[in-house]
């Protein structure tokens, strides 16, 4: 009992560690929320542009077939920027940017977790979060080969 209470009072990290999860959860929740809201807003904007170009009937209640092939679609970051610069397929490019923002959000949450663990000086979890990020990078490299 004595050793326990002294351990708590001696270690400066203990009270911090107790408060930290709530703060981390708040920041992480905020990052996820902001990521989701921003991407949803961009996607909605893209859909509005689609409706503006093709008409609400065609886009929202159109036939069960896909407009044009996937060739229309900008599918790399470079093609996206080209599409916006040259004013072609702008609705698709804007929607894609919204979708990409959504896809980046979970990765961002791991980055935020890593920073939070570092602030808590929980090095075990800094290493674990770094391994996860490394694996995500490796996975995307492997996927492109």
């Amino acid at each position, binding site marked *: 009992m004595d050793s326990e209470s002294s351990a708590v009072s001696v270690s400066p990290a203990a009270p911090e560690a107790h408060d930290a999860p709530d703060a981390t959860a708040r920041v992480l929740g905020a990052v996820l929320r902001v990521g989701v809201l921003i991407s949803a807003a961009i996607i909605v904007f893209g859909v509005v542009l689609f409706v503006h170009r093709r008409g609400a009937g065609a886009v929202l*209640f159109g036939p069960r077939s*896909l407009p044009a092939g996937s060739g229309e679609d900008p599918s790399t970051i470079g093609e996206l920027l080209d599409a916006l610069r040259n004013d072609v397929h702008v609705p698709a490019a804007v929607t894609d940017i919204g979708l990409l923002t959504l896809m980046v959000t979970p990765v961002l949450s791991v980055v935020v977790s890593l920073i939070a663990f570092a602030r808590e000086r929980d090095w075990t979890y800094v290493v674990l979060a770094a391994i*996860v990020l490394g*694996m995500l990078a490796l996975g995307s490299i492997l996927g492109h080969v």
Partner: protein
Amino acid sequence: MFVEILVLSMFAGVAGALLGLGGGIIIVPALTLLIGLPIRYAIGASIVSVIATSSGAAAAYVRGGLANLRIAIGLEVATTVGAVSGAFIAGHVPVRLLYITFGLLLAYSTVALLGRVRIELPGDVPFDPLAGRLRFHGEYHDQVLGRRIAYTATSVLPGSLMMYVAGLMSGLLGIGSGLFKVLALDVIMRLPMKVSTATSNFMIGVTAAASAGVYFSRGDIHPLVAAPVALGVLAGAWSGTHVMQRLRNTTLRKLFVPVLAVISVEMILRGLGV
């Protein structure tokens, strides 16, 4: 087409947020069978659905303390290693054998979960030193029971192995990793069901993000298919998180078991080529 996909995706989002799944198991058959879209756009949309469910639900679950960050990041190591090794061996293993193997594993898990259907809280679990070292514990406020529930994980190594299988599966087949994650957390590591589905929800987005870029650059993510999926699933997942906190752990399991049973049968049948 847009409005139909939007409505279907809302249902997928609610189910995903409740059960810790990505909704791909609903989105893919719905888009191919009901809407008649090509399979590649359906699979691309299901990746978007997983990420939307995960981010939409986790925003609420992380703040509510239901999703356990340490357990999620710690086990995500096993999952991402599984996903990458799955990507490595993909093409070298017979897909039908994979479906049968994973299907049987799910069938076995269904039986294991049936035995736990009536368990509201895990209570005291066997002490696992690794869980102590990794701080795999936490507490959440249970709205139904009206009190704070403290919990600790057990069997961390077997649970990690199951997480590896979850990653392997998403790397090899691109589906179902949420199912295995919930099973690892609930059946093996014996966390409360709500914590299991919420933590799985946080994890599945990270796993899916690894392969999302590939599907995107391949052109499998069609904007007019993926946009209503993303918006519908986000709305559904957001409302699902509100419903989930009012449900009992036992209710969640009762919803989970039939889903598990249907998918295991579906996978075994696909493996047999029926």
